[in-house]
């Protein structure tokens, strides 16, 4: 499997996701520096979590203007898969590769905890390949601006088109996201943005190992 992980100044989950992918797939992902202008032919590009450019101006806004973003868009338009986790999700929204917006958590605090997600019934997507709709998966979250917001029309569309990959439990929505949305797919199902961190739910000593399930399904599909 050919995967790459983009590193922006201020990315800080790049190493974690590289280790997770390598542990599960045995393939070492390529590191893509944000100043590069070409993404080689890859199956998967990961936009990792962190605080790209210090989250100054607006989370993900400066990273969305980095040189590599044009080639990320090319990769996406070729039908390549893109996974944005946490700050990566924010960046994908700023680049308009995903719809909606992410605003500051409802309680105005950074929140880090383990959270239970409900897998949704989606359109065909490599990212929900290993999961069954209705299943619960546990991943940690760690963010200040993960409150997904969009208007009713878009919410309806996301539902109808099967573009919602994960939802928080209705009684444990940590950030105030509309309709408890935790992860959103692009129209073709090949781009996923999510606030929770599956790469932090792999090892036996992690509080959950559901990240394995998630990445295994993804890798299986990409190798398929």
């Amino acid at each position, binding site marked *: 499997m050919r995967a790459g992980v983009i590193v922006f100044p201020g990315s*800080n989950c790049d190493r974690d996701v590289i280790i997770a992918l390598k542990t599960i797939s045995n393939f070492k992902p390529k590191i893509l520096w944000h100043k590069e202008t070409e993404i080689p032919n890859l199956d998967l590009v990961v936009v990792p979590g962190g605080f790209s450019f210090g989250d100054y101006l607006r989370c993900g806004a400066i990273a969305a203007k980095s040189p590599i973003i044009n080639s990320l868009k090319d990769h996406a338009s070729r039908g390549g898969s893109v996974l944005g986790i946490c700050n990566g999700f924010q960046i994908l929204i700023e680049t308009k590769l995903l719809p909606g917006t992410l605003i500051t958590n409802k309680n105005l605090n950074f929140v880090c905890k383990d959270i239970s997600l409900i897998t949704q019934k989606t359109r065909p997507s490599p990212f929900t390949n290993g999961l069954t709709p209705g299943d619960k998966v546990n991943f940690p979250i760690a963010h200040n601006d993960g409150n997904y917001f969009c208007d009713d029309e878009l919410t309806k569309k996301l539902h109808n088109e099967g573009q919602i990959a994960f939802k928080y439990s209705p009684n444990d929505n940590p950030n105030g996201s509309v309709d408890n949305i935790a992860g959103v797919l692009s129209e073709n199902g090949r781009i996923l943005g999510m606030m929770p961190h599956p790469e932090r739910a792999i090892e036996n000593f992690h509080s959950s190992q559901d990240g394995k399930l998630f990445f295994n399904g993804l890798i299986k599909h990409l190798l398929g």
Partner: protein
Amino acid sequence: MRVSREQEIALEETKNCTLEKAIEMGLSKDEFELICKKLKRTPNFVETGIFSAMYSEHCSYKSTKKWLKTLPTSGKQVIQGPGENAGVIDVGDDNAIVFKIESHNHPSFIEPYQGAATGVGGILRDIFTMGARPIALMNVLRFGEENNFLTKHLLNGVVKGIGGYGNCIGIPTIGGETYFHKSYNKNILVNAMAVGLAKKNKIFYSAASGVGNPVIYVGAKTGKDGIHGATMASAEFSDDTQEKKPTVQVGDPFTGKLLLEACLELMETDSILSIQDMGAAGLTSSSVEMASKGKLGIHIDLDKIPLRENNMSGYEIMLSESQERMLMILKQGSEKKAERIFEKWDLDFSIIGKITDTEKITLLKNNKVICNLPLNLLVEDAPEYHRDYKLTSNKNQLSSKEVAIDKSIKDILYKILGHVNFCSKKWIYEQYDSSVMGDTILTSNDSDASVVKIHGTEKNHFKGKGLAISTDCTSRYVKNNPEEGTSLAVVEAARNLVCSGATPMAVTNNLNFGNPEKSEIMGQIVGSILGIKKSCEFFNTPVVSGNVSLYNETNGKSIMPAPIIGMVGIINDIEKVINLHAKSKRSILVLGQNENKIDGWLGCSFYQEVIHDKCDGKIPSLNLEKEKKLMDFLLSINSLGLIDGAHDVSDGGLLPCLIEMLLKKKLGINVILPKFFDDLKNEDFYKLHGWCFGEDQSRILISTEDKQKVIELAKENEIEIFHLGQTNSSGEILLGKLDRFSIKKCYHIYANKLPKIMI
């Protein structure tokens, strides 16, 4: 002819300094006169600023040096003891652990967000300066009373600041402690500890070497923030403290992250000879210390310093505490290679001077020498005070009868669980990213110590080694007996490590006290150091780094003394790590206590603090031999796989600590009381209180599936042991026939206290 502002400044700062100015800068009259005498001239304004920074308590340890020298600092495991940016120990597999704790008390009171944030940033730089990648952060916080009008504002700001820096730079904050007391109303404590992982043969030091080698400035630009911060931090507060805001530095975790990555990338090459971060007293202390340690001289052209604003005087440049800056000595010829790396990370890189053989520091501005000082005068000849001290200890042993009040156990327990110093700190720790880097095994909410995996130690089926970290200090014990109380703090740190399955290795400390010019405060300091010495020698846990924060007083009133102990330990197999949560259908045993014990030590206890709002009396006594035996026993039964939960009995005593083990899974238990309590007479109620809430030392609660085996082994090893009962999923806690209550109610009280304060 019109004189430009720059020329004006230059003229002004090369003038001879007056005594009044020197005193304003923080020097004493004696110190200034001694400087003039030794220098055989009057120093100018810039030079006096440099003296005052180097002679500040913060940089010179002038009140404590004499005593700090007595601490044990060596051992087989020690690679670098005190005196460098951080301490370094050997943890096997070519790995070294680099760690240190540092205070940022005064700035955090003046400006809580930036004060706390730069405290974290500063301690992280100390770690990666040594060539280590930081892997964990801890913090110890002290605030005023919960109902003090500033407490909420300060707690909120400090927590946001710690999170703001740690979360952004991507190092997990995995534990610590928070304590509230009125003595901190106007002088909070913010102590941050960082731990890093390095290769044993790739440690970087600060001593300069090689005459002619280039001196490099990297990182953020120098601005007018934090000027004379080290001096401010070495003085008492008064009511005009808020006027000191400009002395607080402003942190930029994003630049901190870039600096971290750039430095580690450059360290992979063979270019750096020595490196030091610009922390307290900025460019002054870093340049002076590097040159002085190398027994060389240093020459700096201040016009080469990247500045954030125009018209900065030499004085301001030298004393600015702008953050995220480093000073390096490079091998000649490697400048280009280094510059490229810093360019990649969008950071300033400037060759600002060179190493000389003069044993002097010379500073050039506008091609004029504005400072020319012998280094020995600044470092070796810095004052060292032999301050008067009065060792004290409270010998008044209070019986439980004198302390206990006639209330039900349940009522007292609820008071303890809902006390701000016992309750859940979830409101705080959920604002810290504790899982970034993916190596966090346990935070201090799940275990007595926080544990991370030592990255890269895993091999095939072996899951790797763990590093456990604990921070401790029970200030009420220290106040009543500085020596024994601090000795106990070291013991508790060690016991906490053991309760997570780790073997204690080494210590860092942060000595937070009041004004050392008062003999009783100096007595606390001396007593504390003696206490650390005693316990650290006994457990073979040398002190490898530390920090001293004095003058924590406002309007002449000192804080409760807080000699914070940060200890690290090694877990040889992370699959043997222990958390504190009991499982259902397990036996709970107390190690270090038997069925004959029917009372307990309530003097100077948390019980006394909660019920009577005071803490005095003789502190619980401690037998180091007994403690060591207990710890060894716990580690041995853990290696046999006999325990699945452990928690030391500390603040609050047996019952509250037992409840802590049951909270997560909301378990119930039928507590088996000693026979004595079967027909307890009313007038003997205090004995039950002593048994439930006493703070006798050297006790650990464990949860096990194999009660018989553990009891058998305990008897063999002459460890006292008592079976408290069997956990169940009922959620009901029965205290023999004497009292009953539900774990849900306990949880409710425990969980809701802090959020209620912070609304």
